[in-house]
C-alpha cells in the first residue's frame, strides 16, 4: 500500500515537468482565451515545446496555484496576484487591453452613452467586483445599475451574444472575438486599461516569456485587438 502511494507521488512529481520536458502548462486569464492558442502554436513551431492551457478567472487560478496546481506560467491582468504565486522572480508585461461598453449586434436597446449603464429599464450586465474585469469596471466612474454581476468577463460576453443583456462592459478584445457583440459606440480612447503580465513559476518557462515580448508574438496579440508593448 505504502509502495503504491509512493509510486503515485513520484509519478505526479515527475509529470510536473523538468528541464528537457517538452511541455509547458500555462494558466491564463479568461480574456486571453482566443489569443493564447495562436500564441502557443507559433511558440511550438519556433521551439518544439507544446503548451497546455488552462483558462479561468485570475483570482480563481491564483488560488489553485497557491493550493499546489502545477503550472509553469501564469498570465494575468492583475500584477498583485502574480506576486502571490510567482516562485521564479521573473515576469514580463506583454500586452494591454481596455474596457468598452458593448451591446448585442445591432444595439437593439439603442445604448449611446456611459449614462445608459445606470438606466434601470435596461438589462445591464457587468463583471463582479471580485474578479479583475469587475474591479476595473468600478473604476469607470459611473453608477451601474446591474442586473447581474458575472463571475468572468466571458460570462458577460455570452449574456450579450445571447441577447439576454442590453448592455455590458467587456474588454475590447472580447468584442473583436465575438461577432454577435459590438461596441455601443466608437470608444477608441476608452479606459480603464489593464496590462497583462506573464509570470514564470519554473525556469524552463523563461523562453516562453521571452517569446511573448518578441515581434511575432506581439503581432499575433495585435491581430486579436490587444494593445501591444511600445518597442524598447
Amino acid at each position: 500500500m505504502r509502495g503504491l502511494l509512493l509510486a503515485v507521488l513520484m509519478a505526479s512529481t515527475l509529470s510536473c515537468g523538468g528541464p528537457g520536458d517538452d511541455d509547458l502548462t500555462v494558466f491564463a486569464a479568461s480574456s486571453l482565451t482566443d489569443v493564447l492558442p495562436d500564441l502557443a502554436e507559433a511558440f511550438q513551431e519556433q521551439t518544439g515545446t507544446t503548451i497546455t492551457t488552462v483558462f479561468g478567472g485570475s483570482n480563481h487560478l491564483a488560488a489553485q496555484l497557491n493550493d499546489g496546481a502545477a503550472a509553469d506560467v501564469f498570465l494575468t491582468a492583475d500584477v498583485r496576484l502574480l506576486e502571490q504565486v510567482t516562485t521564479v522572480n521573473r515576469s514580463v508585461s506583454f500586452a494591454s487591453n481596455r474596457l468598452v461598453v458593448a451591446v448585442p449586434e445591432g444595439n437593439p436597446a439603442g445604448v449611446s452613452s456611459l449614462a445608459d449603464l445606470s438606466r434601470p429599464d435596461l438589462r445591464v450586465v457587468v463583471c463582479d467586483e471580485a474578479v479583475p474585469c469587475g474591479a476595473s469596471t468600478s473604476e469607470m466612474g459611473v453608477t451601474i445599475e446591474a442586473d447581474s454581476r458575472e463571475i468572468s468577463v466571458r460570462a458577460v460576453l455570452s449574456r450579450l451574444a445571447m441577447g439576454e443583456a442590453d448592455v455590458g462592459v467587456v474588454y475590447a478584445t472580447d468584442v473583436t472575438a465575438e461577432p454577435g457583440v459590438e461596441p455601443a459606440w466608437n470608444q477608441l480612447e476608452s479606459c480603464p486599461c489593464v496590462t497583462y503580465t506573464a509570470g514564470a513559476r519554473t525556469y524552463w518557462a523563461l523562453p516562453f516569456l521571452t517569446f511573448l515580448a518578441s515581434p511575432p508574438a506581439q503581432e499575433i496579440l495585435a491581430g486579436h485587438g490587444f494593445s501591444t508593448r511600445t518597442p524598447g
Partner: protein
Amino acid sequence: MRAPRPVLAVAAIAIAYVALPVLGLLQRMPWSSMGDLLARESITRPLLLSLLVSGIAALVVVILGTPLAWTLARVEIPGRRIIRALVLLPMVLPPVVGGTALLFALGRRGLVGQWLDRWFGLTLPFTTAGAVVAAVFVALPFYVIAVEGALESGSDELEQMAGTLGAEPMRVLRRITLPRLLPAMGAGMALAWARALGEFGATITFAGNLPGRTQTLPLATFLALESDTEEALALSLVMLIVSLAVLIPMRDRWLPGRRPER
C-alpha cells in the same frame, strides 16, 4: 447481528471520506471574528434569499412532482421509460448545461421565453423567480425518484379494494394513497430541498448573480472565495448549519426503511 470487522472498517473509511473535508473546513474557520462576519449583510442577504428560493422550489417540486411520480408509477402511458429517463436527466446533466438549456428555452430569445417577453413582458433570467426555476429544474428528479420508488414498492391492494367498494379515484388518492405516501414525500422533499439549497451552476447560468435578487449562498460563497476567504468560510459554515438543521430531523423521521430513534 454481530458486525463483521471488514464491513465496519470500510464503513469507517467512508465516514472519514465525508467527515474529513468538513473537519478541514471547520479548522480553518475564523471563529474569533465569526460574530461580526455573520452579522454582515453580505452573509445575511444570501442566506435569506437561499432559504426563500430553496423553500419555494421545494414546494413547487412537491406540487409538480407528486402527480408526476404517481402517473409514472400507476398509469400505463406510452413511452413511459423515455419519459422517466427525461425526468431524471437533470440529475446527471452538468448544472451549467441545464442552465444554458433553460436560457435557450425560457431566456429572452428562448423558445418559449421570447413569447413570455412579448406577450406578458415577463423575463425570467436575472430575477428571483428565475433562480427558483433553476432550482426546481435540478431538484425535481430527486423528489420524483423517492416518491415513485415508494409507490412501486408498496402494494396497491388497498387502493384496488377501495375502488371495488365504489370509491371515486380522486377519493382513493386522497384518503388512501396520499396518507401512506407521506413519509416518502417528506424524504423526497428533503432531498429536493437540499439539492435546491446547494444549487450553483444552473442558477448562475440562467438567473445570473445579483446580491438580494439572485445571489444565493453557493454563489456568494464562490465569489467570496475570489476576494475574501474569511467571508467565504463563514458562508460555508452557514450552509453547513442550515443543511444539517434540516437534514438531521428529516433523516430520522422520513428516510425510507427507518424508524424514529428513541
